């Protein structure tokens, strides 16, 4: 008999989530101001009824929002639902968005407040830690390594307000004034919440 012949099979290639983006949009500019202008333009087009423009906004901002939702809600299922609700609400409220602040800031404000509402309505106690999200982040911690993973877990131990302030300030990069405006608190309170968060995180990580 002849030598074995490798069977050529049509193998199904599936990515981690099994999906791929349906279309590609030009990536957002690295320049912050240019990015804001692009967002502004997309908002205008969305208001005129262009679905593609809204999708572009989703593509640009959903990773950040999803990250926030995951870390705030500490629950993947809730975060997915929340992401959907946030963008639907954003779409609804776009007509009233005046453009005084950047779209991203406006979106973050909407997002963090919805997350806080969700957490508070459930009761912080009921928000049990049965689903630590380490798996979600494990594929992406590159430069930070194990430290990042530990940090993700530790963030889940922060009470809602300090968690929100910490994420907005240190992860999303807003200054205390912006954080204050988003959360409806004074600048000093934001600072205090962030410091409290850092102290608590240090304790948790030291365990």
């Amino acid at each position: 008999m002849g030598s074995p012949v490798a069977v050529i099979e049509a193998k199904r290639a599936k990515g981690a989530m099994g999906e791929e983006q349906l279309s590609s949009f030009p990536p957002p500019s690295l320049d912050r101001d240019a990015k804001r202008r692009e967002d502004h333009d997309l908002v205008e087009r969305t208001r005129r009824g262009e679905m593609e423009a809204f999708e572009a906004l989703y593509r640009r901002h959903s990773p950040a929002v999803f990250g926030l939702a995951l870390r705030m809600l500490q629950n993947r299922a809730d975060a997915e639902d929340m992401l959907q609700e946030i963008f639907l609400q954003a779409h609804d409220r776009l007509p009233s968005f005046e453009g005084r602040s950047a779209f991203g800031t406006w979106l973050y404000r909407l997002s963090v407040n919805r997350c806080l509402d969700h957490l508070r309505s459930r009761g912080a106690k009921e928000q049990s830690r049965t689903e630590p999200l380490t798996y979600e982040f494990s594929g992406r911690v590159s430069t930070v390594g194990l430290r990042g993973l530990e940090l993700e877990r530790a963030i889940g131990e922060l009470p809602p307000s300090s968690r929100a302030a910490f994420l907005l300030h240190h992860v999303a990069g807003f200054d205390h004034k912006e954080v204050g405006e988003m959360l409806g608190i004074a600048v000093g309170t934001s600072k205090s919440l962030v410091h409290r968060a850092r102290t608590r995180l240090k304790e948790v990580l030291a365990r």
Partner: protein
Amino acid sequence: MTDEHPEIERLNEYLDQGLDPRDHRPLETHLSRCEECRRTLEELSAIVHAASELPEVAPPERIWESIAASLIERKSLSRRSSRWRSALLPALAAAAALFVGVSLWLVLRTGEAPTAADPEALAYMVTEELKAAESHYDKAIVGLEQIIAQNDGVLPQELASVLNQNLDLIENAIGESRTAIATEPQSTAAQESLLQALRSKVTLLQNTILLINEVRKGQGDNALDLIDEMRKTPVPNAPSNPI
């Protein structure tokens, strides 16, 4: 006072460069002598640094699809045009409630649904992508079947029989899937079944050709290497997944 350990709040302030400059010197002196406080400061700093590197997280694609579906439903509901108040409307609403997948993109692209007043129109659109995948498979299958037909009688009767029985089984699966899609075009389970069945058919046909090749080699038939012929038949590698 200067040698007492500072409150952690002071260290936090210092880290933020929010401490009164006059207080820097005493604090720094203490830090130079105190390992514990230095470590505390380092830890706080590490937390800040690590936090700034925490990544964004790409959400699953189906979330966008759900959002888009909801938006379409809202859009259609808000239209005044009578042609939307047709049988198509409940179909669109149904689509919005379920996973629809790639099909939705087509709706978004065209901006509005077709004017046909029957649910079949939506069903047609919904399966556009699926049909594209199907036609790729069908082409591959035709090519492979041709090679097999050209070598009729090469395989021993029993073997050919087993292969044919299994091919029939797969054909049934294909038929069932197609019927299911016709009745429930939005069902991803049905679409997935069809693609899976087509894949199975291609695999079996390829295996059949390999066997034919082996038999021919065994018979000293070096005339045609079917493997090369088979390779020329383009087979979809990564079929589009409706999810």
